[in-house]
């Protein structure tokens, strides 16, 4: 990767953080283990709307959450300018698609790990923060200079490489390991299937046992 590709990758990860903050940060919808661990899901049972719909619409904070989105977009413009390449119009759609898939992978990870909070609310209350932050920090490293035996697990078992490195290369037609540019989408779907399964299981456990540690902090704040 040349320096402008690395800059593009950093811009990509900044935009991903910005999208997550703008659409999933409000009321801890992205950090769902907090709401589970604090016994706040009960508020959601009172509403005549399905839980997925509530979660999809409560997290939007356009003003306080969009700073990374704006700065990331500016950095990406600088990087693209430095790359000095001509991109077709559909490339922008491909970029948007990749960004959405990356955010879906982050959310899938968060909800998958957060399912633990149904069973261990105290210990796992902050597990989504831990997972998102850890994945986020590692994702900012360009993996191109690393040996393949390290690259491979980081795009499969611990898919941090899919949060910025892989999409960057794929967007410039250099997807590693001869994989298709659609590969992150496949991982996102698998992750969401797992997350949905374990989250639903946890929810059934929750309504049977309850969580006797209600804390108002973070509910609609």
């Amino acid at each position, binding site marked *: 990767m040349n320096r402008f590709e690395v800059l593009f990758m950093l811009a990509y990860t900044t935009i991903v953080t910005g999208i997550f903050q703008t659409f999933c940060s409000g009321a801890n919808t992205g950090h769902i283990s907090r709401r589970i661990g604090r016994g706040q899901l*009960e*508020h959601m*049972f*009172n*509403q*005549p*709307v*399905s839980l997925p719909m509530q979660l999809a619409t409560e997290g939007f904070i356009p003003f306080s959450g969009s700073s990374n989105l704006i700065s990331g977009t500016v950095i990406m413009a600088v990087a693209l300018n430095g790359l000095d390449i001509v991109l077709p119009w559909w490339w922008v759609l491909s970029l948007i698609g990749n960004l959405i898939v990356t955010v879906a992978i982050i959310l899938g990870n968060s909800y998958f790990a957060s399912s633990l909070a149904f069973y261990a609310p105290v210990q796992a209350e902050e597990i989504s923060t831990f997972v998102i932050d850890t994945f986020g920090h590692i994702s900012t490293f360009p993996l191109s200079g690393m040996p393949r035996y390290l690259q491979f697990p980081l795009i499969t078992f611990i898919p941090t490489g899919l949060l910025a490195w892989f999409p960057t290369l794929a967007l410039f037609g250099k997807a590693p390991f001869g994989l298709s540019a659609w590969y992150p989408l496949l991982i996102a779907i698998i992750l969401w299937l797992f997350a949905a399964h374990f989250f639903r299981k946890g929810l059934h456990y929750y*309504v*049977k*046992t*309850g969580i*006797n540690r*209600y804390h*108002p902090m973070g*509910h*609609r*704040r």
Partner: protein
Amino acid sequence: MSRQASTDTTPWVTAGRRRKAPAMFTPSAGSPLNGGVHVQCVTKTFTQWQRENAGKGILRNLLKPQKKTVHALDDVSFTINPGEFVAYAGPNGAGKSTTMKLLAGMLQPTQGTVSVLGMSPDKDRIRLMKKLGVLFGNRTELWWDHPISQSFEWKRVVWDIPDDVYKRNLEMVTDLLDIGELQKTFARELSLGQRMRADLAMMLLHSPTLILLDEPTLGLDVVAKRQMIDFLKKVNRENGVTIVVTSHDMDDLEEMAERILMISNGKIAYDGSFDGLRALSEAYGIETQTVVIKKAPIEQVIAGLYKAWK
């Protein structure tokens, strides 16, 4: 017992002034008032982890953690008819909040069936929530960092309340609960009493047929409590809304409700009128500070009964 929803403009009195009431609150259009609440043979058990802090106990915590099974509700059955105002009383840990959560669909029973307004809180949650109002005294449904009016608007959209119903109910709660001045204020800046009034107002905006109130007077001063009690009585008597309320303040309960369900150790210990409770107290030979048992403060009667049952 069934009451017809009133839509007249009967003069009513507030703060010593005689004024004309706004168009009155009416239960959801088309919603059946014949549903009520049916709880049949409900058992709810919880598991509590036991921990030791010394010696071998610490090792045992890791290797073989001890569990204790608590029967929050034990084969509980009762029916609440439409239009009733029922007090649900009991000492701390008796199972009051558990029952409320079961009725509101927040918990599922270990055994038995729960039917609220003819629906299962578990299977028909979304449909039921359109007709149910739930308020827990120790938590708020208001958006903390927004003005109260914003929370009300949110409620209108999420509950899909028709404009005319919303306007009528908003006018009614604004007037009866005296929250006109509060609507532009952020929820975080309200006192507890003001917040409870705003919460109560928001709960009623969608014209619930049944209201579940868990400790609604918790922490309220005398004036705020008075305001809330008067309001609830009015909503029940004039609009036929079924209300189930829990409280530790027995005098408040007696003033509000006609029927009391007493729970003790997860079982229904008494179901009837407050006068019947006094008669029962007499039968148990419980003495109160008041000479005439029929006029005894209900608080003393209940405390005596629990002592006798133990």
